[in-house]
């Protein structure tokens, strides 16, 4: 019998350009499991997509409602934006007792939301990233930074975290200024940022949204030459859009020196999508975790498998990397403890959110490359 898993992402709306890769990531994991033939006695895992629109809580709720009550999905990989994620969690997942694993909702508010133990995320929390950013900046000897963030819960939370950490470490934040995604022009923001000054501009935004717009404008006007890119900004698009103009800029995004990340990129290439696209690896991991937990519980009922997610994701146990899901299923069947590492070295802490491992990147010769891990 087929097992259905919902993929609820903003296929239309402001994040529509990164969602295809995210969905593809999740579906890649499902295909892998299905192809192994070792899942729940040979069941296939069928993805069912739903459009969260990223912004319209009601539409997202209704899509989730349909997936859960009509398609009968056994778990939800999603949603993407924190707002709709919260809505689906409260209005669909909890009432129906369905597990939800979000690959990209990073709002700290979700940590404390009532979830009956049903909600997890493979994306690290913003607080953690604040520390990482501060460390990297300090190691490079920067004392003065300006921050611009995309005006939503992700950007705002991240900017808050960075500011707090950086100032606590004795640095100066000259300005923290929001930008709205998808707008036509960022001259005003860049004007204010330039006026405030700073050695580095931290762009807490999305690479295919306003973030790139701000960088473009800042480069053109000569407002900043060095940038720091947090997770939402790191992607192939950066190379494409700016190339050598960014030489000397740096950043970090979730990832480990484990082979997982690279493997995933390779697998993605084979499947025809961009594995470095934001939150695509997280999506793979989210889907994988759901399925592993089901296997471990021997049941697709959320109530049964929800308790296994945390312990599957964390050590101890045999490490599982992308592409090794079949092996994992075997190990689970054999009763061996596993530690799912996946594409992003997931490590779930606290209320079921990723602890966050980061890889530091730097631009040289018009492309970025990983120079270290934190």
């Amino acid at each position, binding site marked *: 019998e087929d097992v259905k898993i919902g993929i609820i992402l903003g296929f*239309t709306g402001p994040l529509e350009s990164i969602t295809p890769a995210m969905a593809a990531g999740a579906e890649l994991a499902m295909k892998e499991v299905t192809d192994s033939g070792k899942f729940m006695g040979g069941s296939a895992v069928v993805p069912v997509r739903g459009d969260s629109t990223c912004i319209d809580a009601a539409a997202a709720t209704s899509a989730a409602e349909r997936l859960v009550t009509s398609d009968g999905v056994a778990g939800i990989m999603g949603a993407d934006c924190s707002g709709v994620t919260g809505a689906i969690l409260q209005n669909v997942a*909890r009432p129906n007792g369905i597990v939800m694993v979000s690959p990209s909702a990073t709002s700290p508010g979700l940590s*404390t939301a009532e979830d009956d133990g049903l909600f997890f995320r493979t994306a690290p929390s913003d607080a953690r990233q604040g520390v990482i950013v501060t460390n990297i900046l300090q190691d490079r000897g920067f004392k003065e930074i300006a921050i611009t963030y995309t005006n939503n819960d992700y950007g705002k939370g991240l900017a808050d975290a960075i500011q707090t950490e950086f100032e606590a470490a004795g640095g100066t934040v000259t300005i923290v200024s929001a930008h709205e995604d998808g707008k036509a022009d960022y001259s005003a923001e860049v004007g204010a940022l330039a006026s405030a000054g700073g050695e580095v501009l931290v762009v807490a935004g999305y690479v295919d949204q306003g973030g790139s717009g701000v960088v473009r404008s800042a480069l053109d006007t000569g407002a900043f030459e060095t940038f720091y890119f947090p997770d939402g900004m790191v992607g192939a698009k950066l190379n494409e859009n700016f190339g050598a103009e960014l030489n000397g800029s740096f950043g970090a995004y979730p990832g480990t020196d484990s082979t997982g990340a690279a493997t995933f990129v390779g697998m993605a290439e084979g499947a025809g999508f961009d594995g470095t696209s934001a939150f695509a690896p997280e999506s793979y991991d989210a889907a994988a975790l759901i399925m592993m937990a089901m296997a471990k519980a021997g049941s697709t009922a959320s109530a049964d498998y929800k308790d296994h997610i945390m312990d599957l994701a964390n050590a101890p146990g045999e490490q599982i990397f992308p592409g090794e899901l079949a092996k994992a299923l075997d190990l689970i069947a054999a009763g061996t403890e596993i530690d799912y590492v996946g594409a992003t070295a997931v490590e779930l802490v606290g209320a079921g959110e990723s602890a966050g491992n980061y890889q530091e990147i730097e631009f040289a010769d018009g492309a970025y490359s990983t120079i270290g891990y934190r």
Partner: protein
Amino acid sequence: MSDTLRNSIYFALVALLIIGTGILQSWNSALFILNMGLISAIMALGVNLQWGFAGLFNVGIMGFVALGGLATVLISMPPVEGAWSAGGMRILSGLALGIMSIVSTILVFKRMQSGRNRTLAMLAVLSIGFFAFRAVFDGGVEAVEAINPANAGNIGGLGLPVLLAWPIGGVFAAGAAWIIGKTALGLRSDYLAIATLGIAEIVIAVMKNEDWMARGVKNVIGLPRPVPYEIDLQNSAEFVAKANAYGIDPVTASTLWVKLLYAGLFAVVLIVIFVMAQAALKSPWGRMMRAIRDNEVSSEAMGKDVTARHLQIFVLGSAICGIAGAMITTLDGQLTPTSYQPLRFTFLVWLMVIVGGSGNNLGAVLGGFVIWFFWVQVEPMGLAFLTLITSGMAEGSALKAHLLDSAAHMRLLTMGIILLCVLRFSPRGLIPEK
């Protein structure tokens, strides 16, 4: 075919669509559509009041809906500990200062002779007021936002029952509408439209950026509910027993029951508003409004105070949108300011009114249900359509893959096609004004 018969058929069709959803998809989906349909119908009524009856081109609906949502937080959330003592009072006095400076600017404008002196005096009062406001206000905001910013950082609410937030949401919206009306109702047609649109954007900007109020873009989640939680029902032996007696599993029963309770609440609000709107419309008041809509100059010459009537209906219509906004936020259980997008909360409502038939309350209600139904169902419809046309294509063909990848975008396309078809078949709306 008589009008009554036609209208009954329309509503029967809508009922059929919803019931069909229940049978083909799930009753939860059906009830969800019903609930949002009820709320949509209320919003459509509010807009219809303004446009259909008074010809006011208000495209700031989003702002009023958002104010209703804000009310929900401010009324029903428990207060944040220490926020009031930290800076709440200071914020309030800052706001008071701000209002005072605006009022005194207006006074200067009214009292002084026009000329350069007046302009200078106004500028002086305004800038002094502005800096005083910032000086007092900013400190308070900082203090409040410093309190546990990751989970609070706002002043919280009053901790009152959430149902109370519905009328208060209406009052919020009405208050804003009154201020807007006083300043902008002199504008006509599209000029009024852009003014109201702008004001709505301003409301949203404030809600997004003033974290002390309702956490801004960080969202407020976990709002109290007027109905029980499903999980509580599932844990209640009594409920489980009842569900079993009807042969429904307790989880489904609880989700359905909660939705039914909501539906009941929403239906009551809708019916009350509908009956009142209908009574008003079918009376000399309605006649007067239609006269004003037809010809303002001559209504004015016939002794009707056009400005006052416009203000009245603008405030009323907006209040209704505010109530609906509070209801949506209650249903969502959270306030997410980034979700207030003009497409969803303004233009979709306009679609409802026009497709339903502007100037006709029944039409507005019908439009609310129909458009909402499609808004939700075009997603599976678009997908189904694409699956159908690609079913003949070779597996793995590039075109097929491309088509299926684009399925999500077919959602809006399908919506467009449905819209054009409906308007083609009844250009004045499904239930036109008589």
